[in-house]
């Protein structure tokens, strides 16, 4: 701990010297008496001062939590020597809120004393947090000397985004050869009835449709759609976001992406992630719980990195975007680069759906007429972007945190059914 004299020490010594010189100058012993306390207190303070030996441990209830979860943080402070006043300040990263307890408090420790301070934290926002930035300041008995130090008791806390309720998701048009939960458009071994055809050598007897065979007077077999899995690429826009009052479109986008990843992985689909923005990050498609953790961990590192460089989809590694994959883009559509990149993906025949995290709620128009006109023009421009995608056959669902994601995705599903009919 680094010692430092408090301003009192210097002030008292100066006052003592001043009054003593005044006593000399005026030849009055009374002034020496007035000077005495200001001289004696620093002497007493220096004589009694002992360097404090304080130990601090920090324990977190659990290293992983969900958004809005509350968890307990224990701070154990121990000292072998008495410390008259120990001030503790725990630095809390933005995104964690204190529910109960004090993050700045003072204690008095006796001989071999140990105190446990319990703080209750609320995880207000998803993220990767490092807890444990502690500042300590100990004072001597008289308060003339202080010792300060900064302790690094780093404890990692991962706060996962709160999943949205999602009953149905956007089904991909194309499937992969592996088994899954998606009814494929191809015909093969499966549960879902597809068609009837005449019996050929090698067909199983159990697939014969006896009623249809009786009507047609030839052996007819049932054809079925197999259940396959699909490749799904979640395309997160990290070029720009809109922020207001501690909320941001990126927060919502990460929440939606995590929810979609979880739901697609439950269906045994292969899910990959492309975080497209100032910094390009990607995860190759994979399956299972480990892939879910990989995706969520990658999402926790998502941040807006400002970058002027023009980027298009050609910089994304080819294996990250497998052919016939469903690409679900989660974006506020604020940056021209993402608008063009998505149009480019569509031009490359990717099955594309867009969840637009609406920035409209984050941008309130100014009071003047020109501000409101500019706001209306901006909204019109956004509508024009959406219309452009719809002309390309891409469903765009506009989502804000005031409405459930499930309802918004229903619009995408309806659009894709309609678009499929038009193509047919």
């Amino acid at each position: 701990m680094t010692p430092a004299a408090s301003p009192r020490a210097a002030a008292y010594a100066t006052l003592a010297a001043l009054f003593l010189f005044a006593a000399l100058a005026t030849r009055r012993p009374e002034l020496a008496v007035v000077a005495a306390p200001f001289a004696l207190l620093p002497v007493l303070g220096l004589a009694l001062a002992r360097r404090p030996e304080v130990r601090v441990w920090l324990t977190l209830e659990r290293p992983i939590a969900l958004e809005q979860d509350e968890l307990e943080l224990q701070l154990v402070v121990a000292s072998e020597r008495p410390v008259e006043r120990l001030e503790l300040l725990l630095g809390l990263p933005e995104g964690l809120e204190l529910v109960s307890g004090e993050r700045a408090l003072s204690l008095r420790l006796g001989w071999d004393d140990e105190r446990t301070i319990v703080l209750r934290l609320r995880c207000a926002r998803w993220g990767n947090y490092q807890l444990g930035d502690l500042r300590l300041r100990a004072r001597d008995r008289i308060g003339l000397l202080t010792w300060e130090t900064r302790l690094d008791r780093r404890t990692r806390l991962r706060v996962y985004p709160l999943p949205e309720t999602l009953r149905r998701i956007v089904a991909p048009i194309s499937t992969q050869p592996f088994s899954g939960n998606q009814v494929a458009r191809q015909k093969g071994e499966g549960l879902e009835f597809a068609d009837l055809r005449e019996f050929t050598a090698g067909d199983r007897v159990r697939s014969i449709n006896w009623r249809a065979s009786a009507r047609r007077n030839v052996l007819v077999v049932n054809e079925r759609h197999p259940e396959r899995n699909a490749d799904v690429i979640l395309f997160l826009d990290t070029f720009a976001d809109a922020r207001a009052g501690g909320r941001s479109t990126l927060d919502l986008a990460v929440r939606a992406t995590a929810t979609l990843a979880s739901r697609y992985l439950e269906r045994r689909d292969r899910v990959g992630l492309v975080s497209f923005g100032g910094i390009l990050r990607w995860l190759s498609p994979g399956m299972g719980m480990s892939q879910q953790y990989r995706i969520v961990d990658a999402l926790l590192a998502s941040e807006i990195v400002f970058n002027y460089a023009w980027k298009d989809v050609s910089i994304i590694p080819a294996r990250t975007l497998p052919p016939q994959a469903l690409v679900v883009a989660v974006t506020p559509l604020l940056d021209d680069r993402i608008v063009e990149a998505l149009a480019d993906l569509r031009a490359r025949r990717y099955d594309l759906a867009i969840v637009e995290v609406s920035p409209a709620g984050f941008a309130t128009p100014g009071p003047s007429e020109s501000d409101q006109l500019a706001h209306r023009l901006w909204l019109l421009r956004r509508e024009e972007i959406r219309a452009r995608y719809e002309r390309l056959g891409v469903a765009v669902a506009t989502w804000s945190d005031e409405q459930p994601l499930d309802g918004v995705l229903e619009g995408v599903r309806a659009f894709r059914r309609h678009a499929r009919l038009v193509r047919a």
Partner: protein
Amino acid sequence: MLAGAGTGAGFAVLADDGYLARANILVTVVAVAVLATGLVLDVSVSIPVAIALLGAEYVAILGFETDALDTRAPLVAGALLAVAELAYWSLELRVPVVDEAGTYLRRIALLATFVLGVVGIGAIVLTFVETVAAGGVAVDLLGAAAALGALALLALAARRTSP
């Protein structure tokens, strides 16, 4: 601030001469203003300045009106120390730290001990001075030794606090 104003008012009352009393009131107003500014703006340097101004009032009373040994000196010392301690305490209270129960009581008890100790020690010193009636060179030597002691104290404090 109230303690400072009270101490200054006390000095104005102590002054027999009307001119000196008015001057003391004026200095008290300045001292309290300096103290208030320091407390509001969180400038600790203003505290010793205010104490020095209040002390100057007592020096003026001693210089102009009292020839005999003033037995009120320990009370003055206690009052000035109390003003200084309370002012520093009020600055410390600005730090947003939650104190555990009993902290204020301990602090008040410590302050009361200091003030009573100062009054007691001052009374003993004054009694000693009066008894031996040490004047001239003896008082000069005592004062010089005390002043040198204060300077040595400053040097010691600087050495102890350097990391």
